[in-house]
């Protein structure tokens, strides 16, 4: 085999003075970097290191450090080390480069150019520790009008309301399938969702029987591969989500590599063990909005109109018109997944070069639906790169009802963003099916961490709202007056629908 030209991406440094040769690193690394040498010293194969930091965190004497290997040639501002490495890799493999998690390139982050408002003197702020703050929200179709019937004094709603789902705070865990992540990780998300009164999402891999106790907090997904979709699955979910696209890979299919398809996953999905689980790029029964309507109504018929049906799309350039079509097709919830949305596996070029930041997507869709008189009928959910309670509140002010958290939730469980989920070797036990690794996530302890994160965000959300003198989330949705742009040109401000910082109400 000819010598590889691809230099290691990271370098492992071991402080021999501190190393006690306890071999923890050998056991901890999912990528097989550390090994015992013949001279009883521990050596590292830099080529395999992905900088997941597991060994660094776990080394009892702090003997390890990982650095980026920058000195790989005459890189310059145009030909970065990353570009050089990609070309060398492809010259050797002939394949599209895979990656994981969300787009990490240096595109503008609108969240970081938006500032929130606060009350001073003329409209007093509210103390969230003293006054109740309403951060509940309801997802589902809202009736255009209510009819009341019954004799005077005993009036009641005539006819049933469309099904709605209550969220105790405006976040949900985004679709992550059993297969792309481990069963323990799914269980941690499910337990946390139940404790927080929010929802988690099965993703497209079907439903593991262990999720039974969490069905009241479960969104079931129907994607193009239709893995695990049957009447029991549809019945189990509170919301049914049709996945058309994903922000990390708009327009292309899903692809769970055969390495991750063990017997249990194969059974849940109805495919052979070790086979790639392929979700075709489109649903082959949906080539138009009219076809989408048929799938929406098939699902509604199949569940007797008892569940809201959501449609998730990747945010792309024509998103406003598409979302309008989706609402007209009968969706009760529209999910927009932005450029920064994560994934278990995606071709790197697609992940990094297609899509729209979710801030813009939500803003333009919310505006379009308002213009067309449709906004009040549906719920709008933002996904893709929500990093903090501030991002969450900003995206609500831009028009979302709630947001999906994917990457942030995994980070809470210990993920260090190494972007190698597709390998199935995750040292943190999250994106893997290897039993020696998956046991690193304890569902109960993981749920505690997630609950802590959300509790903290809840508190921050209430403080933000109190500062603005607003005590109900309802009044935040689409409330662009609470936002001002800094460092954005006028046309970007116009797309977002916000004023320049400094401009008054």
């Amino acid at each position, binding site marked *: 085999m000819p010598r590889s030209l691809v230099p290691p991406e990271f370098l492992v440094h071991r402080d021999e003075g501190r190393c006690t040769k306890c071999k923890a690193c050998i056991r901890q690394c999912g990528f097989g970097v550390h090994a015992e040498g013949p001279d009883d010293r521990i050596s590292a194969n830099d080529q395999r290191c992905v900088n997941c930091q597991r060994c660094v965190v776990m080394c009892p004497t702090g003997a390890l450090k990982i650095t980026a290997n920058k000195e790989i040639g005459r890189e310059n501002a145009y030909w970065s080390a990353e570009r050089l490495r990609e070309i060398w*890799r492809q010259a050797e493999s002939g*394949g599209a480069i*895979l990656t994981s998690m969300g787009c990490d390139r240096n595109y503008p982050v609108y969240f970081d150019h938006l500032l929130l408002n606060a009350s001073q003197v003329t409209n007093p702020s509210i103390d969230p520790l003293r006054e109740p703050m309403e951060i509940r929200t309801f997802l589902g179709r809202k009736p255009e009008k209510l009819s009341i019937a019954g004799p005077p004094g005993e009036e009641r709603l005539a006819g049933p309301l469309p099904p709605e789902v209550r969220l105790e705070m405006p976040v949900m865990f985004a679709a992550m399938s059993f297969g792309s992540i481990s069963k323990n990780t799914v269980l941690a998300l499910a337990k946390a969702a139940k404790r927080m009164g929010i929802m988690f999402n099965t993703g497209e891999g079907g439903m593991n029987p262990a999720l039974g106790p969490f069905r009241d907090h479960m969104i079931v997904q129907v994607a193009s591969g*239709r893995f695990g979709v049957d009447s029991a699955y549809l019945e189990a979910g509170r919301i049914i989500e049709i996945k058309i696209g994903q922000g990390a890979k708009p327009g292309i299919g899903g692809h769970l590599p055969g390495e991750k398809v063990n017997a249990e996953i194969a059974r849940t999905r109805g495919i052979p063990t070790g086979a790639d689980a392929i979700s075709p790029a489109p649903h082959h029964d949906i080539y138009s909005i009219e076809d989408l309507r048929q799938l929406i109504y*098939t*699902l509604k018929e*199949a569940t007797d109109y008892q569940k809201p049906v959501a449609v998730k799309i990747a945010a792309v350039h024509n998103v406003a018109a598409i979302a309008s079509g989706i609402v007209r097709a009968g969706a009760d919830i529209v999910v927009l997944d932005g450029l920064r949305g994560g994934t278990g596996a995606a071709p790197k070029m697609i992940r990094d070069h297609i899509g729209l930041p979710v801030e813009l997507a939500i803003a333009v869709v919310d505006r379009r639906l308002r213009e067309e008189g449709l906004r009040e009928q549906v719920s709008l959910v933002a996904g893709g790169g929500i990093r903090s309670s501030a991002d969450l509140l900003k995206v609500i002010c831009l028009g979302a009802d709630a947001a999906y958290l994917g990457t942030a939730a995994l980070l809470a469980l210990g993920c260090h963003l190494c972007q190698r989920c597709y390998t199935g070797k995750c040292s943190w036990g999250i994106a893997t099916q290897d039993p020696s690794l998956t046991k690193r996530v304890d569902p109960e302890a993981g749920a505690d961490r997630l609950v802590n994160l959300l509790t903290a965000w809840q508190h921050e959300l209430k403080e933000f709202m109190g500062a603005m003198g607003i005590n109900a989330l309802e009044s935040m949705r689409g409330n662009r007056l609470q936002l001002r742009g800094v460092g954005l040109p006028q046309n970007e401000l116009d797309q977002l629908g916000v004023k320049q910082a400094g401009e008054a109400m």
Partner: protein
Amino acid sequence: MIRTTVGGRAMKVIESKGVPYRELNREIRRLVAAGEDRLLLRGVNGQRYIGAGLKGMARLEIEGTAGNNLGAMMNGLSIYVHGNVQDGAGNTMSGGEIVVRGSAGDITGYAMRGGKILIQGNAGWRVGIHMKSREDQPAVLVIGGKAGDFLGEYMAGGTIVVLGLDTPLHQERESANPLIGNYLASGMHGGTIYIRGRIPAWQIRGQVQTGLTTPEESPPLWNWIEQFAAGLHLDCSGLFREIFTCLMPQGARPYAHLYDHSA
């Protein structure tokens, strides 16, 4: 609501002509939930989603043309159609059977993973895409006539059989097999497809292995043809010595080579 007797057994009759699909299906769901086990739908004229998502052992007979997504996502139920069905019959179904005396439209059996679909006539395009198979109830789709383009695309399990009952085959080398369209089995990574006659390589899109067989040599094929004949009350014994092309995937990972898995 009237009752009629078919084959000595009582059946509830639903006069369906002109009834909006939502009403019709609500009535079907109500009756099936109430334990009614035989329903006859008369005058069906294109209502969609009949039987969608239903479970149980009820038998549904349909006179007329069933609309799109008949029996979609169902698990159980035996549906018999005296007529044609439009697109998407058996879409994502996971058990039960659909028997059609006429022809079926596009995306028949899309992503089905269990149960049987028997079509006496032809089927449209994109049929059996992403079929899978459950261990306890394999998915099978038998087409008596011809099928269109993209048959068995992304197939992950189960069996598709195309018989071409009324089509005489006089195949020259490399001439198209008239029972199928183009792009057969692209991305196939599980399951088996049997097509009567020979198939030139250019008509197949997937990386599949092909072989020739006859129902006499191949017990599973024989079995599916017998079930088809029994379900539709046809005599198919003339087929048992016919040549069929059998397609199976070369590997369970058709696209692995397109990606760089290193690092």
